């Protein structure tokens, strides 16, 4: 089967290029459908210092149909779902060509971390954060990288024992405290602020405060 031959060739090519710092392996030797790949977060981005693990499913028609890829590592990025790890990238859909390899696809994902496309978002909440306040977005993305993608921590296992929910979504902790002092539940406050896309607030902006309270009272 040509698909097996091609995949073996692709794995060899990854091994032959250690400088790229990319890994690509079958999950089990008996199943050539499923692989795991990984790459490093690009330098000078909030993803620097993290290793991102990608789940790969190779269809029967590969390489004429694109592989299915998603992030196993939780990542805060406009084009990647913060919940499921699903990726919005054209080469994995209609722009796929048989000359693209798993390695080049992983490099494209690395490049996606470098340059987000907030106008074609996969995660609307994150994309909004990115467009409204890039600096705050970067802080959150860097926090997620530290929490979920640091090489020592590995995927899914947070380094810090307890992560503050507000901080996790880039919300100003003082804002949450403010509403907590009014007697609202913290989980609910974070939920509402996330839904409304509010990360911080000018204390004189009464219209927004009223809107938040209205939502909290629902």
């Amino acid at each position, binding site marked *: 089967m040509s698909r097996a*031959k091609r995949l073996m060739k692709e794995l060899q090519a990854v091994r032959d290029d250690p400088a790229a710092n990319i890994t690509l392996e079958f999950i089990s030797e008996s199943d050539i459908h499923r692989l795991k790949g990984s790459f490093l977060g690009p330098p000078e981005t909030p993803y620097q210092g993290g290793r991102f693990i990608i789940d790969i499913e190779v269809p029967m028609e590969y390489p*004429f149909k694109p592989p299915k890829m998603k992030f196993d590592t939780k990542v805060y990025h406009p084009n990647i779902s913060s919940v499921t790890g699903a990726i919005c990238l054209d080469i994995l859909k209609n722009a796929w060509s048989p000359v693209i390899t798993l390695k080049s696809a992983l490099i494209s994902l690395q490049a996606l971390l470098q340059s987000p496309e907030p106008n074609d978002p996969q995660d609307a909440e994150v994309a909004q954060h990115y467009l409204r306040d890039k600096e705050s977005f970067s802080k959150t993305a860097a926090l997620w990288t530290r929490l979920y993608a640091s090489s020592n921590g590995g995927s899914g296992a947070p380094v810090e024992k307890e992560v503050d929910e507000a901080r996790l979504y880039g919300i100003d902790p003082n804002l949450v405290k403010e509403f907590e002092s009014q007697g609202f539940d913290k989980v609910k406050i974070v939920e509402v602020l996330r839904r409304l896309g509010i990360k911080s607030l000018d204390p004189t902006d009464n219209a927004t405060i009223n809107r938040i309270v209205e939502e909290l009272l629902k």
Partner: protein
Amino acid sequence: MTDLESDDSLLLEFEDDDSESISNIDAPTDSKATHLDSDFANIPPHNVDTDDSEFDIDESQFSEDDLEDDYLVFPIKKTTKDLLDEDSLPSLKYECLTTQEIFDSMKRRVHHLQPVFSLPPQDILILMQRYDWNEERLLEEWTEKMDNLLIESGLNTSGESDGRGVKNGKEFFCPICCEEILTETFSLECGHEYCIDCYRHYIKDRLNHGKIITCMDCSLALKNEDIDQIMGGASSVKLMDSSIKSFIRKHSNSYKWCPYTDCKCIIHLKDTLSLQEYSRLHASRFVTCSMGHSFCFGCGFEIHAPADCRVTDQWVKKARLECENLNWVLSHTKECPRCSVNIEKNGGCNHMVCSSCRHEFCWICGGDWAPHGSSFYQCAIYKNEDKNKLVADTPKKTLRRYAFFYKMFTEHEVSAKLDWKLGETVGFKVKGLQEKIGVSWIEGQFLTESLKTLNEGRTALKWSFAVAYYSDPSHNLTKIFIDNQGLLSNAVESLSELLQIKSPEVIMKRRTEFYNKAGYVKNRTKALLECGRDLLRKGISKARE
């Protein structure tokens, strides 16, 4: 082959029971004929009690002499389209096409455009695809940025065609399948070379996407001749087909597929502006494909006049929602209410005569036929038992009311389907006329036309129950509408009965009756449609959730 066989057998059958059928049919029809004659032979009676109806048709136009002349010289030829193109509505200009026809006309355009581009036709075809077959936009951008346009469209601008094409078998390592074998290869001028198998796989996967297929590694476009050369056959036809299909999808305002199963027709509406006028008037824009399928251009549903698209949509949704509450079996057989013998419905006629006890009853309500046969068709009226009590609609009562209209609707639907079956035998009847009595084909067409008229009448009747359901029952116009339903019901039943006659001699003898009854159905249909549209226009009938 099978067609011929069935033809023969049916013809034989026809001949076989001919002598029998005359006696068989003549006996009952004799009595029936007088009954029908009294009602209809000399044009419908004028004293129908819908006196104040503005929708009553001018029946004086139906003097028998006129009819004979008109219909003999021009056999009833009006199509559904004509019938529905009321004076107040702009006529729809449309054509029926196939993807091949659309593609052929595109090719003619390409031929036309060649002097402008001075490129080979294949290249212009690529440019047209890139611009979704939008010639104006292509020409506009062509004058602005020729060279860029060529590059963007994947056309080789170097002027050389070196290296393009299938190459003879050789030992080759293909980077796609990673095989190293003796194989033919293909590449474009870019030199990106792959084995022929991979190229075939690649193209096959993309033929249905309707987009330009490029080299696997760069943006150079494969032309139709490349595709055919690689695939070894006329595969580019498939690509053009899918490209035209995507063109139709993108222009769904003016292009629509015929919704009938397996029909490959596309209706191209030439003046989309008139559509707005149609919705304003609560009329629907019905079109007929070249296979004779009629449908609504607005909603893709069958012809649903007098209902407009909104009423149709609501009605269909409601039927789907209520179908579990509505427990009617739409069987083709019913028990005789008197002797319980099973009787199969013959054609769409609702006038049932029990084969065993000769009891005459109505298929819809099961009641005696006698009151139905008079000028007023009882069954079209919903008898509200609580008429005198002015209580608010309870859900149960609402459902019962809906159930009545739904039952009427489906009964007419079943009747229409049975009439359609009847139609299959009409063809043989026409043949019989030709062979037995030497009637010319064109003269025999009155049978076909009568059947068509019958179908149009049934369809209008069927959908009129959707309009009636949503109508304010207390309004006078609603009452007039119901009267009109009754009149059309009668007309349709009577024409349907006439079409059951099998003997060619009897058919020819009663030919005038066919003309008259068909003409009457046509006029009653028109009146009902106009009245229904008026109900909608005046907001007396309004579709609700």
